[in-house]
């Protein structure tokens, strides 16, 4: 099990939760597990998010590995100027 933290705005689509324990060994599994558990989250995740694993930001990196003790944050998709 890994603990995944959602940014505040997503909690409305996740039954009010911001921390979710789930089984996932990479980003794709984590996102799929979230979407399966909270169908309302799916469109928000599909629109594009960043996933921070142990402080490193990933965009669209399905296979970035997640360890059971990883710190995992789902955050808005980063953009820049």
């Amino acid at each position, binding site marked *: 099990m890994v603990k995944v933290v959602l*940014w505040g*705005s997503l909690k*409305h689509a996740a039954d009010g939760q911001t921390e979710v324990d789930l089984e996932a060994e990479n980003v794709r599994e984590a996102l799929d597990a979230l979407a399966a558990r909270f169908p309302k989250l799916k469109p928000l995740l599909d629109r594009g998010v960043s996933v921070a694993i142990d*402080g490193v*930001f990933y*965009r*669209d990196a399905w296979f970035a590995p997640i360890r059971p003790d990883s710190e995992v944050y789902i955050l808005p998709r980063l953009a820049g*100027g």
Partner: protein
Amino acid sequence: MTELHQQGAKRTFKLVGTRPLRPDGIDKVTGRARFGADMDAPGMLHGLVLRSPHAHARIKRIDVSKAERLAGVKAVVTRDDFKLPADSALADICRNVMAREKALYDGHAVAAVAAVSKAVARKALQLIKIDYEILPNVTDVDAAMKPGAPILHETLRTEGVEPKPRKASNVARRHEFGHGDVAKGMAQADIVIERSFKTAATHQGYIEPHACLASVGPDGRGDLWVCTQGHFMVRNTCAGLLGMDASQLRVTASEIGGGFGGKTTVFIEPVALALSRKAGRPVKMVMSRNEVFRATGPTSSSSIDVKIGIKKNGRITAAQAELRYQGGAFPGSPVEFGAMTAFACYDLENVHTVGYDVVTNRPKQAAYRAPGAPMVAHAVESVIDELAKKIGMDPLDFRLLNASKEGTKSSFGPTYGPIGLRATLEEAKRHPHHTAPLGPNQGRGVACGFWFNFGGDTCVSLNINVDGTVGLSVGTPDIGGSRASMSLMAAEELGIPYEKVRTIVADTASLGYNDVTDGSRVTFAAGMATIKAARDATTKLCARAAKVWGIPAEAVVWENGHAKPAGPNAGNFAPMSLAEIAAVASSTGGPIAGHYEVNADGAGVSFATHMVDLEVDPDTGKVTVLRYTVFQDAGKAVHPSYVEGQYQGGAAQGIGWAINEEYIYGADGRLQNAGFLDYRIPVASDLPMIDTVILEIPNPGHPYGVRGVGETSIVPPLAAMANAVSAAAGTRLTELPMSPPRVLKAIMENGRGA
């Protein structure tokens, strides 16, 4: 002048860190370089856009018949020529490049013509008749959020609130971040300061207006020459809007005359393609400066409340902020980045931020250097400054006491790895600027800033030529010297002289997809891909040498530009240089090239501390900047001159944002200062030299330790300036720009002058 401070850099470099001349330099000092507007095509037409003079109006009817009949007019396009895409983000772009039911801001495109000359095209625009039904407008963010405000989009419902609203609103989204218990933290505080701040919308202000040359043939194949931060983005967006196959639209990036985020989307490009398709001839479009201001993206204006509580010893117990950003006529203001970065510089137990993304009758905002961060840094760093003053602590010490460090849980969630914030603060404290004496009416301000940086999709190709030279193809437009840094990294890795590498920006048909030049990503991501492509090439070079020597490829290593047997056991062969291997490439298996494709991660966050001295004229409120120093972490400065340039440019833009630049709207919702005369960017005589201190805290996510440097430098200056002006004026300024009327008013009401 620059000082370099390296921390923990293990690798010694031969070329990286030196300052060779940029490879595109001669072209740019002789006028040979071709920018967006510098390309012509045989039979070319000139395209112009008709723009709404109204801030908010229903478009009842468009009559182009007279324009179409004018001799020399070859095509006219309107909303009817664009099919609204299903994808909602693309649909917004479609509506932005050509208005549909409503014109949503002064300058919104409503029609376009292509004609044999600019003069004919201008005449044709006057012949287009539009029936408008003028609607009430709103351009201020707080006004747009009020009940009863004119609604831009009847279908817009605020996202991120529960229960889901049933009524239309101008608030597109609510974002929330934070951790801990702010109420509890505030209760523990000895001192709490709460203030509200406003910042004006500012434009990226690139000197080159948007320009492109489009050509679409009857077979559906198209070519586009365009000044953009990302030609692959232009290709995908335009192909989507025009229903073309990506493969059939080849986009070539011209030299680009500045972007700063403003050229990360499309405006005239799909219009030029539509005109060309309709006219069957190439169409060139060049925006006027007036159009650039009215119709391309400035950044958001903001309204922000900040509340911070501290113990008497200076330790922060809780921090919160509410941010309201208007992003123009469509959702997508960078308020979430504002809310994430607000307290990123501080190690906090209790922190909470809420951001509202609001639409108004202004041009759709576009990214601007660290989008969303400077405004909130202005607010937060102003309160931090006031708190430090209140307890009589040096503002740098106050920040050092509370600064984020490795292992800090950031205000947006993730835990920081090795970061350079404290190093910049300590460097600032040691710097002579910190203790230099100040005269009457002068003030000193400091502020910190943070930006994420990112990597993104990157694809690079590196060709070894038979004569031992190297061609490097990247897909990221060179906006500030990146061809020099790419060449440096390739040469470093290959062990050949810098001059032997020629880096070009390849078109969309020649290379795989590359994300836009933004997010301070190019030196990091394209640099990483370049290094990896070079390593791919050296692996192949070693293999060729191994073939020549008749030994296994694993027994050959690449060192100092040569393939060498790995050790005495591998055999006794004289090392082969890159040129020697290249010369026999055809005989040893064919051309040699290195490639690398990656969605680059691990960009590494970046921090800066800025320090400014300035003088306020107590009789007129005019601010004169006297001295400015930037302290920023670059990870590893590949070409220090261009790193300094990024620091200096960010600081200068921030100074302009702080004291003069602003979008000024009348009650009619029309932009009143759509030109460089009254949109006042700093001129040479407004600024002092801008000193820079480059710190190098290597980024573990990059082979050379590089961090992006382009954006962070615009985050601290707004606040540093506000803190300095407040010190000099003897009263706290909370609204940008700190224009002379505003500063004088503050002085006369509360300051030293009173």
